[in-house]
């Protein structure tokens, strides 16, 4: 392409002032301002969409200065030129090409292309094929920039090309794709572009074409321009003084060799180039500069972001300083609520698991549909709460199980919501893609309206439109490419929707966040560029699976040297046009956001050799460590709501109070209880409850009173357990439940053996599941005794409590704990001396049981023992553990403690809290650096 047709002409716009006004004036030429500025016969090729927008604005401004308006030229990027030029009804869309690629990759005999696939992939499913298809499509695009197809690579790669065979085989693959498309009446799009560029059509009314300030145009587009230059003037406008002519080629591209070695000038270098610790620091510094310009910074200062990943940081920093910003790249629809909703619908369609239900249940549009259906009093919060409760109680595997378990007492939102989900599921299952998707959305949005004057509705309408586009594209492609399953179409459509972007108009006054290549077109006097680090400016490709640098060079594709030349030129131009009226500030970071070390851009090192050592010392200096003032500080203390003390508590409540009165308050008075959001299995309490149910049934069964047969007892226990489990979870169990229930069975089986032995030893169950309520002081203490046993030979009795904790606990250890430093502050009655050592009461369960027996005068006769029936995870340790250390003195002390605790609870003594290790504290989330310090208890709210 290094030829100059007669009509190809270069023009230079000097860089001592900003480009835009000069470009507008240049395009206007000798326009006298008497009539509208009419540029309809001109096509202008610009580097980016954003620069095109800027150009049109500049033209309007230029005409306005003479009270006129503009009939604008057609402004488009090189890529758009090729795309619109080669567009035709029979050209395959990207989606169709990917489908063709995927088909080829799944059908072809991989052994025939061993150089491309040296090892066989594990499974050739669509996901595999699709990812590869995208890779190959991208590769096609890269080669097409240089006007090449896969088949032409070897010929252009020249001698001693090490991967000849591989590219031959890649060419076979591409040919198969072209053929596959042709068989369906479609033309491969890259081939179509290349073909068009060979014979580009120019509308007859176009009388000149301008390539405007494009340092890096697509070579293929240049081929088209070259053809046009045979007919109409093609004018290449370079933003540089005429004296720089030698540094550019005929197309206005900076010459590699000319820019590789040249010195780039930035006045006051050491003041203008600033080292920051990381992208966050850069963003904050840039935001401070903007802030310095007061209320209307737009037009005075502009921001460039060389590191695209840092863009959100800059957005945040500006927002914090109260400056509106605008990202011309837009946001991908993947981040939109509609995408999340669609993903949830797709999951529901694929498998109506309960997780899929729960995910859909929280989509705002679903909530809106639910509330719309339920009428004015319907509540989203109630629905979610009921759903969580359903999960906690029944662990349903899927939607059907959930509907079966939804109890009649549940709030009405529960059946309503589940029914809506079932309806959606039915539609999605019944109808093919995309019809099912459209119908389901129709159901969800029925009766809703998008009021386009409201920003969020307008955005929702745009999202709907984008999604509809994706659906239709799939529908059209599906007519040509069958054989995909519904979930595959869903995946494809979601990808396509998710990757497309939403671009908004720039809000007035918002500061644009521009990429490096846009900056050539920026005209604000003060330009601050962040992320001027090597790898961002210039970017470089080091190593590639298909197109490494050496091959790019051979093929005439964009090389690292060309990137350097382009960026060196941009740097020089944006610095030069501010030398007189403005300033360029360059920020670069020492480390990336993830802590990787970064290096300053090589552009910054393009100085005279004599200056290099000083420049290196300046740029590579360590960043000053920030002096810190960030000692841990408490933002606030918690102010818990105050509620009156309870009149009754459960026996276990006393244990809670003894462990920590404040947490007792939170749990028992404020009723604070967490929800395990993705509960997928029984928790310890569920596990105990289920085992208890079977054991209680056994105790209450008269026929088993005297049973000493392990087998009979076991069968009974397991049958009862089975019944209880089935009632709660249904017949269809999830994997964790299967494991847990089996574990429970093992424990119960062992308990049967122990029970048989105990009975044989003379112990009969006298009473079981016996509820009591003991008045202690002003407090009613409630409890339930699992069983009361009587030893027939001796007449002794014992109360037993079943324990399913993982390790067998000796009752004594559970009830009293050793005295620890700091326990001195505990009231006398909480302390007890036993075996000559001081202890503290931790639980009063068994003594209270005995006290309840006393109250019924059942404790007459020989003393009553108390203990646990332990069912630990090491089933070998299943046994009755009697509290042998329980002396009358100890019992008396326990009673005193119960009296004290009851009185304290009635008196509302819930302070101070105990300091617990976070891993053993259900309320750990509330406390940082000490529970007592975290709460302002005295400040009533």
């Amino acid at each position, binding site marked *: 392409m290094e030829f100059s047709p007669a009509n190809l002409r270069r023009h230079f716009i000097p860089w001592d002032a900003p480009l835009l006004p000069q470009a507008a004036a240049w395009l206007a030429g000798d326009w006298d301002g008497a009539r*509208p500025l009419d540029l309809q016969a001109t096509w202008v090729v610009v580097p980016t969409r954003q620069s095109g927008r800027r150009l049109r604005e500049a033209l*309007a401004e230029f*005409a306005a200065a003479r*009270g006129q*308006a*503009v009939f604008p030229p057609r402004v488009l990027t090189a890529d758009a030129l090729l795309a619109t030029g080669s567009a035709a009804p029979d050209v395959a869309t990207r989606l169709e090409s990917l489908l063709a690629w995927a088909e080829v990759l799944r059908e072809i005999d991989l052994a025939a292309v061993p150089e491309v696939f*040296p090892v066989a992939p594990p*499974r050739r499913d669509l996901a*595999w094929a699709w*990812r590869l298809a995208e890779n190959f499509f991208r590769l096609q695009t890269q080669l097409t920039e240089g006007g090449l197809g896969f088949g032409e690579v070897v010929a252009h790669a020249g001698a001693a090309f*090490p991967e000849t065979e591989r590219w031959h085989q890649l060419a076979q693959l591409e040919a198969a794709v072209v053929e596959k498309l042709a068989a369906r009446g479609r033309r491969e799009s890259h081939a179509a572009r290349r073909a068009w560029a060979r014979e580009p059509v120019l509308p007859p009314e176009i009388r000149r074409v301008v390539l405007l300030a494009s340092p890096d145009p697509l070579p293929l587009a240049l081929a088209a321009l070259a053809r046009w230059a045979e007919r109409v003037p093609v004018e290449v406008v370079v933003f540089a003084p005429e004296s720089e002519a030698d540094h550019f080629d005929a197309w206005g591209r900076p010459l590699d060799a000319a820019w590789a070695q040249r010195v780039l000038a930035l006045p006051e270098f050491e003041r203008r180039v*600033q080292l920051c610790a990381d992208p966050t620091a850069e963003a904050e510094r840039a935001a401070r*500069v903007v802030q310095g310009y007061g209320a209307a910074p737009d*037009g005075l200062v502009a921001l460039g972001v060389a590191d695209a990943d840092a863009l959100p940081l800059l957005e945040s920093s500006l927002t*914090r300083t109260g400056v509106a910003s605008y990202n011309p790249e837009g946001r991908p629809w993947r981040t939109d609520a509609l995408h*999340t909703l669609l993903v949830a619908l797709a999951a529901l369609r694929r*498998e109506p*698991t309960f997780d899929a239900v729960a995910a859909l249940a929280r989509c*705002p549009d679903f909530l809106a549909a639910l509330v719309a259906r339920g009428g004015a009093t319907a509540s989203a919060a*109630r629905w979610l709460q009921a759903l969580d409760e359903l999960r906690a109680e029944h662990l349903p595997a899927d939607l059907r199980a959930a509907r079966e378990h939804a109890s009649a007492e549940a709030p009405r939102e529960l059946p309503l919501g589940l029914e809506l989900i079932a309806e959606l599921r039915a539609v999605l299952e019944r109808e093919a893609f995309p019809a099912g998707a*459209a119908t389901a*959305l129709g159901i969800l*949005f029925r009766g809703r*309206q*998008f009021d386009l004057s409201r920003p969020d509705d307008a955005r929702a*309408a745009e999202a709907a439109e984008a999604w509809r586009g994706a659906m239709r594209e799939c529908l059209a492609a599906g007519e040509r490419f069958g054989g995909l399953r519904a979930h595959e179409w869903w995946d494809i459509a979601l990808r396509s929707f998710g990757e497309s972007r939403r671009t908004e108009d720039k809000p*007035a006054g918002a500061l644009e966040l521009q990429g490096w290549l846009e900056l050539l077109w920026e005209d604000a006097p003060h330009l*601050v560029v962040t992320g001027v680090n*090597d790898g961002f400016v210039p970017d470089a490709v*080091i*190593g590639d*699976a298909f197109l*490494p640098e*050496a091959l790019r060079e051979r093929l005439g594709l964009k090389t690292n040297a060309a990137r350097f030349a382009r960026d060196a030129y941009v740097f020089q131009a944006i610095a030069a046009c501010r030398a007189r009226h403005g300033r360029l500030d360059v920020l670069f970071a020492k480390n990336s*956001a*993830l802590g990787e*070390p*970064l290096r300053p851009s090589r552009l910054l*090192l393009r100085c005279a*050799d004599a200056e290099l*050592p000083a420049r290196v010392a300046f740029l590579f200096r360590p960043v000053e*460590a*920030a002096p*810190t003032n960030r000692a841990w500080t408490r933002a606030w203390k918690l102010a818990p*709501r105050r509620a009156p003390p309870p009149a009754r508590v459960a026996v276990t409540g006393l244990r809670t109070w003894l462990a920590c009165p404040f947490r007792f308050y939170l749990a028992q008075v404020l009723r604070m209880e967490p*929800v395990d959001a993705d509960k*997928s299995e029984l928790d*310890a309490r569920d596990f105990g409850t289920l085992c208890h149910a079977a054991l209680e049934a056994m105790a209450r069964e008269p026929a088993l009173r005297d049973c000493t047969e392990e087998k009979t007892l076991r069968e009974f226990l397991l049958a009862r357990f089975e019944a209880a489990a089935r009632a709660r979870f249904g017949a269809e*169990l*999830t*994997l*964790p439940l299967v*494991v847990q229930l089996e*574990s429970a069975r093992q424990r119960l089986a062992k308990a049967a053996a122990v029970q048989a032995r105990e009975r044989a030893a003379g112990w009969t169950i006298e009473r079981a599941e016996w509820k009591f309520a003991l008045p202690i002081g002003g407090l009613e203490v409630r409890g339930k005794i699992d069983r009361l046993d009587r030893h027939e030979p001796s007449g002794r009795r014992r109360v037993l409590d079943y324990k399913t904790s*993982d390790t067998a606990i000796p009752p004594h250890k559970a009830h009293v704990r050793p005295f620890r430093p700091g326990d001195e502050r505990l009231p006398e009655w909480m302390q007890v001396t036993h075996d000559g050592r001081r202890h503290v009461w931790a639980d009063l369960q068994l003594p209270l049981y005995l006290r309840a027996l006393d109250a019924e005068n059942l404790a007459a006769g020989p003393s009553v023992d108390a203990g646990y029936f332990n069912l630990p995870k*090491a*089933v*070998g340790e299943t046994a009755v553990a009697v509290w042998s250390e329980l002396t009358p003195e100890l019992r008396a002390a326990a009673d005193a403690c119960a009296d004290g605790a009851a009185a304290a609870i009635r008196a509302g003594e819930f302070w101070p809290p105990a300091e617990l290790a976070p891993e053993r504290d259900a309320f750990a989330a*509330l406390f940082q*650096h000490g529970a007592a310090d975290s709460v302002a208890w005295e400040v009533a709210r």
Partner: protein
Amino acid sequence: MSARHVMILASAGSGKTYALTNRFVALLARGARPERIVALTFTRKAAGEFFDEILRKLARAAREPEFAAQLAADIEQPRLGPADFLRMLRGVVEAMHRLPLGTLDGFFARIARAFPLELGLTGEFEILQEHASRLERRRVLQRMFARAPDGLDTAQREFIEAFKRATFGAEEKRLAARLDAFLDEHQEKFLAAPAAELWGEASRIWPRGNAWLAPRRRKLADAVADLQAALARRALPPKQQARWDLFFAALPEWSPGAPLPRALEYILENALAVWSDVGRGCAEMTVERKRIALTPDECADLATIVREIVAAEFTRRLETTRGIHAVLRGYETVYHDAVRRGGKLTFGDVQRLLQPDVSGESLTRAAADEGEGRLFIDFRLDAQFDHWLLDEFQDTSFGQWSVLRNLIDEAVQNPAGERSFFCVGDVKQAIFTWREGDPRLFREIFEHYNRMAPGAIAEKHLVQSWRSGPAIIEMVNAIFGRGDALAQLFPGAASEAWNREWRAHESARAQLASHAAWLHAADEPERFALTVRLLHEIAPLERGLECAVLTQTNATATALADYLRREGGIPAIAESDLRVGTDNPLGAALLALAQAAAHPGDTLAQEHWQMTQLRAVLAAEGVATPEALTQRLLAQVHADGFERAMEFWLRRIEPTLAPADAFSRERARQFVAAAALFDATGSRDVAEFVAFMERHTVRDAETAGVVRVMTIHKSKGLGFDVVVLPDLEGQRLDQRRGGLAIQRTPERAVEWVLDLPPKLFHAQDETLSEHVRAAEAEACYEALSLLYVGLTRAKRAMYAISKPAGTSESRNYPKLLTATLGAHEQEIRIGQLACAGGWSAGDPAWMTRVKPPAPAAKSPEETAPIASAEQWRVPRRAARRPSSGKAGVIDAAQAFALEGGSAADFGTEVHALFAAVEWGGAETVGRFAREWSARGDAAAQALACLRAAELAEVWAGGAGREVWRERGFEIVLDGAWVTGVFDRVVIERDAAGRARRAAVFDFKTDRVATEEEIAAAVERHAAQLNSYRRVAAVLAGVAVAAVTCELIFTRGPHRRTVPPG
């Protein structure tokens, strides 16, 4: 620099970086191209510093002739001068983007990216960071637990079986938690040895058989009955009899794998103590301090019982190990399918991909073969690697080495001698063996290459410390130079390896006032208190000294930093990983808020956020009920992600924070940054978000002017003026690291894996005992390394604080210090402070000789706004597009409908048709009627409009009439930049060609029928048309009053004039 290949054993502070950078410069000086020098290290930070150091060194040499001369001499190229170094500097700077200088992980990823299909990958991949991999695990587990509609599938049922085997004897209550722990514990081990036959396979562990597992002739029950009867006949003393009774009672209850009850253990221990006698049939066994002479029959019975127990335990452990393997395989299968195949790899995955497989085939090896099947690493990576520089070589794992080996072999064996290998490390600082660091490699590689070509690699020891003053070096020598004491304390491989590598250290800073001491403190409170007193006495910050307090664990670091701040008033920061989401009230409340929104029944979360400022802040925003919270927050999160949602609320909370509370503001920023990281995963799930934030950690930025508290592990590579080591208590040093036992061959291939039985059992087997001995030696060596690293961080002063070992037998750090430094307690002075201790050296008043710090150099000023910018302000106008008409209300359900097309599409089509019409007339209508015949509703409607009498004037041509069709314009109007397109404008010109009047026609395809609807539509579009009127006036060059504007409603059609307004 004389030898081509060099291995440097660099003791702490001996100038490792200096040696590395010199090597790099020397290679450049000999003409090596910088992009051909591979320099690899472990951390990104180290790689960054290494590069900066090279540049700084070259830059200085290019500027300062004396420095250049010194450098030239150091690299044995005395003729080089500043100009040469400048040239090298330029060369490095220009090749900056191509330098293979970085981390091993990064280097491996770069290779893998160039060969995805060769590695069985599907195209490109992303590196899964720690936070994302946690999320993936959660999802994989959810996927495993999900139930197919027709019940559990085979894989799930197999998994259940495997889990049962893996946890035999423990009927677990909770699966998920157990599995999570399982994966934490065993996943890496599985990935290192995925083959099932390596796990719990007796024939691999005991190739020649295991006597314990031999088949037994007698039944256990018989032996038990016989022995019980025999003992009963003996009428043993009650205490002895009781022991036996307990034993027999416990025996049937015990299941192998479960902890051994004391009753069993007791008899077993005593029987095993005389095991060979038992075997011979005459044993005297001790029970309750009395001997029992067992008869041959009793011996036989006892032997049967013991064998049975031991065999059962071994068998169970084998079985459990296989179960663990099957569980991990079940998880891995799903994980692999869902995550790795989806293109998400961890650095570990990448390395494993590149490692030679079992057959020894390796990607990197192929590069050596010039013939068939050669992989073009140099081609695809755009690089050729001539020189290799490896840093911290003691931390290199065998796996990493096996990837590099072939490439380095090429360099070492290069006959032309143009390529080289250089590595540096310190086997005394091998504190990462738990991360597979393999200090033995150093010696092995050295010997390997030298065997192939004697003298191929030169070895150098650097023992002079440029960091530590003489007193500190004296203490290091006093401890670690005591080979005899070490050998006595830790006989065997650990001390042998240590003593072999040990060289006496020297300080290169003989003039530096320094002090080192071992101070005594009885327990943790005293050690903490002494730390405070020391720091008060030394006042390091006031003197401008860097100070670190080093601990063994993060937990201690956090606690100690807290203590120093609270009790000592010392600005101390624990450089542990900070849980920024939950370690402060602000973050915790925000998480509660999110949780409460998504799970309104979570009363813990609901009450929590209402106990905070959030209550007032949300109320001010109209959020006062759970319902409002759920709707508001979920909508925010779904629309914009967690980052923006959280940022929104944080901005409103900010004013309620105390003005001086920089900490909470910092946390707020970190919270938002973490939320952004989470958003990048694409999830909008609140539970996932909360779980993510609870785990998310941030490493605090290095901060100046504080006492830094950190683990010894984190301090590696750093140096401080003052170091305090107050956390040296703990368990014995030769304690095997827990978990599965993995036996490897000398080539590091996994030989077998076993869930090791307790000591009583494994001690009975030589194979297992040997494994344990080796593991203990390895642990012990690492413990010595850890202390060495801790001590050698200090420049001027080093204070170790522990209790004196006293009579304790535990071979822990205090014992080690006592054995080497001595047991005499003495008074030790530090400045004015006197305390008890065991050893000291140097200058107790060293701190008084520290020169006060020079005032900090002024950092370059920040950029400020341009004062005179206003005069150069460029116009930035609001952009308006009158026709884009973002107004009106549309039916939401209809917006998703597939069929029927959108109103917009229909409108576009009608507009396109009209654009083709220049003027009307019968002939034109006839032509379009033919052309459009097959074009559907839009064409029909357009045609109807062409024919409608009411619209005749719209299409009427004639002399002096000019038409603009679909014509775009740009204009500045009322200060705004207006862009638009006219549908149709007809201009009437007079004979002179001057425009007299213009008519703007705007086509609307709205569904309007009744007069009211039409009137409403005219009302709606009036503003747009009136701005068109003004634009048309400018463009046509007529007065605004001469422009008429008409709306053409194509359904109908209807024509309405828009009054000027």
